[in-house]
């Protein structure tokens, strides 16, 4: 509702003019993927960071080493298993509830304190990924809360004009969420069939090259590529060779099913890499 009693400023926001700077021009030119197409970024994972929670983990994915590009920083805490409130109906399984929240300052555009539809959607994806991994029937009548806060989103602060970037960033955030939640679940001592980890693969097109055939890269950073045609995020259980969550987005002709299959394979490969870090982190805690 507009406030009619006071003199208000203009409704539409005005955007101050931005003058092109030679310095930023140079920086923009540098932006290219320096990693090989099948290598994920380095990540740092530590469990047991929150003493009051029954399990917790912190994940940080390295920046690309350029100014203005922030990495992904996630913190996850697991509360439970604890008994359900008296009012809730009987459940033969553990009731899983997942909350994913971007910190207000994590992205280019400020987020509010209430969860928006994107964050709820991420939470649902995460729930699907984890529910396949945990052995829920060992804890009847109990609930567990998994809370992830994204302290720093994986966003390039310079590129405000790419509006479509946000939807690809969500994939990277989800894969990080899956990995960190899996570590926190292990830290809480909740039985799982396997450690689940997330991996992202994308089909990218470089306009600079004269070769028009798109190629598949693992762990993409949207600002490093000219155009992302499609991306998929996979949550994968390595020892059982099973997928608990698959999310594909993009525009792909149905005749090119090999391309799709290859993307899923690459996503699984990325997930295996992340899982290795996860296993190493967990063995370190024990030893």
């Amino acid at each position, binding site marked *: 509702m507009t406030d009619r009693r006071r003199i208000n400023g203009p409704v539409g926001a005005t955007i101050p003019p931005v003058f092109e700077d030679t310095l930023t021009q140079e920086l923009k030119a540098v932006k290219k993927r320096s990693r090989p197409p099948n290598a994920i970024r380095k990540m740092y994972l530590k469990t047991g960071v929150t003493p009051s929670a029954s399990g917790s983990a912190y994940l940080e994915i390295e920046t690309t080493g350029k100014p203005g590009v922030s990495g992904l920083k996630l913190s996850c805490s697991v509360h439970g298993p604890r008994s359900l409130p008296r009012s809730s109906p009987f459940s033969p399984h553990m009731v899983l509830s997942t909350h994913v929240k971007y910190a207000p300052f994590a992205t280019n555009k400020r987020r509010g304190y209430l969860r928006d539809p*994107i964050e709820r959607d991420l939470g649902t994806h995460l729930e699907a990924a984890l529910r*396949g*991994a945990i052995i829920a029937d060992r804890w009847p009548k109990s609930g567990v809360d998994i809370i992830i806060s994204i302290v720093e989103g994986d966003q390039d602060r310079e590129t405000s004009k790419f509006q479509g970037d946000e939807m690809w960033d969500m994939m990277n955030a989800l894969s990080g969420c899956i990995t960190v939640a899996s570590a926190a679940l292990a830290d809480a001592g909740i039985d799982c069939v396997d450690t689940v980890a997330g991996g992202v693969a994308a089909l990218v097109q470089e306009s600079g090259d004269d070769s028009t055939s798109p190629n598949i890269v693992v762990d993409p950073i949207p600002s490093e590529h000219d155009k992302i045609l499609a991306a998929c995020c996979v949550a994968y259980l390595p020892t059982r060779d099973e*997928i608990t969550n698959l999310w594909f987005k993009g525009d*792909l002709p149905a005749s090119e099913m090999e391309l799709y299959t290859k993307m899923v394979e690459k996503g699984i490969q990325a997930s295996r890499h992340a899982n290795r870090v996860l296993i190493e982190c967990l063995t370190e805690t024990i030893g």
Partner: protein
Amino acid sequence: MASAQHVLLSPAELAYLHSSLSLTPPIRPDGRTPTQFRPLVAETGILPGTNGSARICFADGTEAIVGVKAEVEKTRSRHDDETVFVEGAGDDGEEEETDDITRTGESDWIELTVEIPGLRDDDSATAFLAAMLSEALLADGGLVKRLWINRRFHWKLYLDIILISPPLSYPLPLLSLTTHLALLSTRLPRLKSEGDEDPFFDDDWAAAPYLYPRQQTATPTAKSAPRSPATRPPITLLVMAVANNILFDPSKEELAVADAALAVSVTSSTRSDENDDGDGDDSMDVKEKKGRNLRLLSIRTVDPPSRLTPPGVANSSNAAYGVAGNGNGKATEGRTAVAEGEAVVEGVWRAPRGGAKRAVMAALVQKALERGGVVDEVFDALEGVELG
């Protein structure tokens, strides 16, 4: 999760359903073939106050209404290279030439809301459904391009999806099909103004063009008919796997025993490929008969509610069937042994654990995207709906 709504089936019923669905060919509770959809009643143009609307009623009683409303909105100007170019260039002819090329849209030109009775509108299940439907609409960027009026103005499209009945089954296919029909019947007023001036529209509703222009369907052999790019709005199908069988459009009970469930969004376009570029119209007609050019837009795993079903207890470990007779302490011992050993007894229901095998996932997508398969049938059936 909406799919996790409680199914009132006992473990024995679940086991029976699962085994009958894993037969070859599977026996579904309502006697359908694996690829058959539930019968439905559809109509379009039911809401006079909207730009396009549709209603679909499934045989099981679930019913949805979609209304599409469009508003003219001022495009947010951004300090892009393009804007600078436009201001600098004084040549009108050149601008008009670039018009078609620079037609771009943004994802926030479409606003989609889903309302499901019994669920809060900030429920994550509703958010998941809305995200899935809007993701498919935005994936190829074709729809937002159509909303472009000129450099200063664009249409803002509001899609309001309302499920009228209680959600008796997972409502995704119903909502997606209704949205498809509503978008097909959507018309936007004909633009009278030219160039970048303030838009001015024809008030004759009969002259309003469709948002998705259609081909001249009356005589497909007539060569004079202008062939417009007949891209169609996307549809989202629910596919599930039980053992080695793949079932389409599962009902609530079937979903309760699913091993894996996927929501696959596809669209069809008759845009000519490179290989039939040089050919005439006849080859196109042949192609259309064979099947459409399908495009995969999105895939999402739907958390099957089968993971939340109560497990059955085998007779060998049931205290009521003589296990208790062996000794007082052994009854509990036996139960824990079974729980840990996880022995699978045939006919005793156990909620699936773990994910889906890679091959199963691939088969689900493969089956959904098959040329001349289910998707083609659905598109054919939807074409038969009269657009009012």
